[in-house]
């Protein structure tokens, strides 16, 4: 398995990660090495084997769909990096951005 630099950039973009050229190069090598160890799985016969497994409980537990489940001991403004009137504030979307005025 060889993961190319281009693939690492594509994956990083999907994962919303910014990698320096050096870090991307290192990541390509590391991913290739790690994935080489996974190759052994291709030799396993999994014809007709289910890919879902019932763990622990048989079927999910349910509860009545009402109200907020717990009282929060802090407000949004206490934990959010930026908020106003109970809303989270985020930078403007790129398509709406005016390069002169964005922060």
């Amino acid at each position, binding site marked *: 398995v060889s993961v190319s630099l281009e693939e690492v950039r594509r994956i990083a973009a999907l994962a919303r990660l910014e990698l320096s050229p050096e870090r991307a190069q290192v990541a390509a090598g590391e991913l290739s090495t790690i994935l080489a160890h996974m190759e052994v*799985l291709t030799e396993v016969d999994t014809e007709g084997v289910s890919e879902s497994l019932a763990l622990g*409980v048989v079927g999910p537990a349910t509860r009545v769909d009402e109200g907020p489940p717990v009282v929060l001991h802090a407000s949004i403004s206490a934990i959010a990096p930026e908020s106003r009137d109970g809303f989270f504030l985020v930078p403007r979307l790129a398509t709406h951005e005016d390069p002169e005025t964005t922060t």
Partner: protein
Amino acid sequence: VTGPRAAVDASLARAHAVRAGSDGLNAILSSDESHARAEADDLERRRDSRQAGALFGVPVVVKDNIATLRLPTTCGSRILEGYVSPYEATAVARLRAAGAIVVGKTNLDEFAMGSSTEYSAFGPTRNPFDPSLVPGGSSGGSAAAVAAGITRIGLGSETGGSVRQPAAFCGVVGVKPTYGRVSRYGLVAFASSLDQIGVVAAGVGDAAIALEAIAGHDPLDATSATVTIPRYGDAAGDSLRGTVIGVPKEYFPEQLDHRIRAHCLRALEYFRSLGADVREVSLPNTSLAIPVYYIIAPAEASSNLARFDGVRYGLRIAGDGLRGMYEATRSRGFGPEVTRRILLGTYVLSAGYYDAYYRKAMQVRTLIARDFTRLFAAGTDLLFTPTTPTTPFPFGAKSDPYDMYLSDIFTVTANLAGIPAMSLPIGRVDGLPAGGQLLAPAFGERKMFAAAFALERALGGEAHR
């Protein structure tokens, strides 16, 4: 010590003693000593006015990826530095309801991704037996704290062995309950089909009391099971006569440290002498567990960790617009191992690779789980193996990521199959602890505890020599 206040004072004094100097453990990331003392005083005052819980006045530590009120919940990551949860994990609430007092939050590999606690953004935890060695991970802080005598009980979390492996490296008991046995409400998600809160404890009895306190259904966790909780502590009186203990040959490879093997064989002799029927068995798909685990766990992590984007909590670093903010925050907030696993997970889930890696891994996971089901259905009650292939290793010894992943070789299978497992001390190798592992069918913790109690009693001081 007698009484909650004396117990908390002793625990905090011990924490101070082992923190000092350049060889300090760095097991505890945060603690609110005056609040812990006030809670102890409060318990003291109400001692007679209400029924004392099973953990009345018992100091405990909690891994820092489990939400607590007041104390920060950082997951050992810069991205959550200083974050204080607005709610409390059910497991913590249940410990407190039983009378326990949280005296500190413990160090871990960032987001529980690691096997040595070297990947914490707040520095590594050291092994109480030798400060040049790792305590194991990812619950290295809880294991080191219990081993150093700060508390007798600590909460940890397991995704692939993160309680059992550090417990083995630090000479204490570590329990990974059945998937669904303990509520995960308030546990910061890493890999949701594998994660489970577990217990680190000074002895089997402490572990039994703690698990009993935190186990049981919780409407706030859809994966928590509505299955009766047996009295695990009562398993101390159960006989092993007729119990079939399987010894899977795949867990005793040639590379296994021969002294760990010898300790395992001694433990098996004790099981035989107590009336257990010890048999060699086979779990043929064992060698596939690490590749399967390191596809599934990073895949789930890449999705779970998408929530850390600088919007709702934690770190925010400004970038070019919204997307730039996401990328700047995540790139500076996550450390190298977390970044590596997010990349790996995103890769195996991406178009063109999903079938070859993720789907295939899920199918092989089914085969691994079937190995266990088949053995248990055919009359094997429990399995016994070493917990780790080696004793604790020095800092920096595993610079190749895959080499580090192999530390989990005997523990990941229980997580993949969703079954309970525990590690307990079975002897020393050059003065360093070695752990033996018991595995049981889903919700078979009581029988697992019965064997653990019996072995602990039979080994006595030999477990620590």
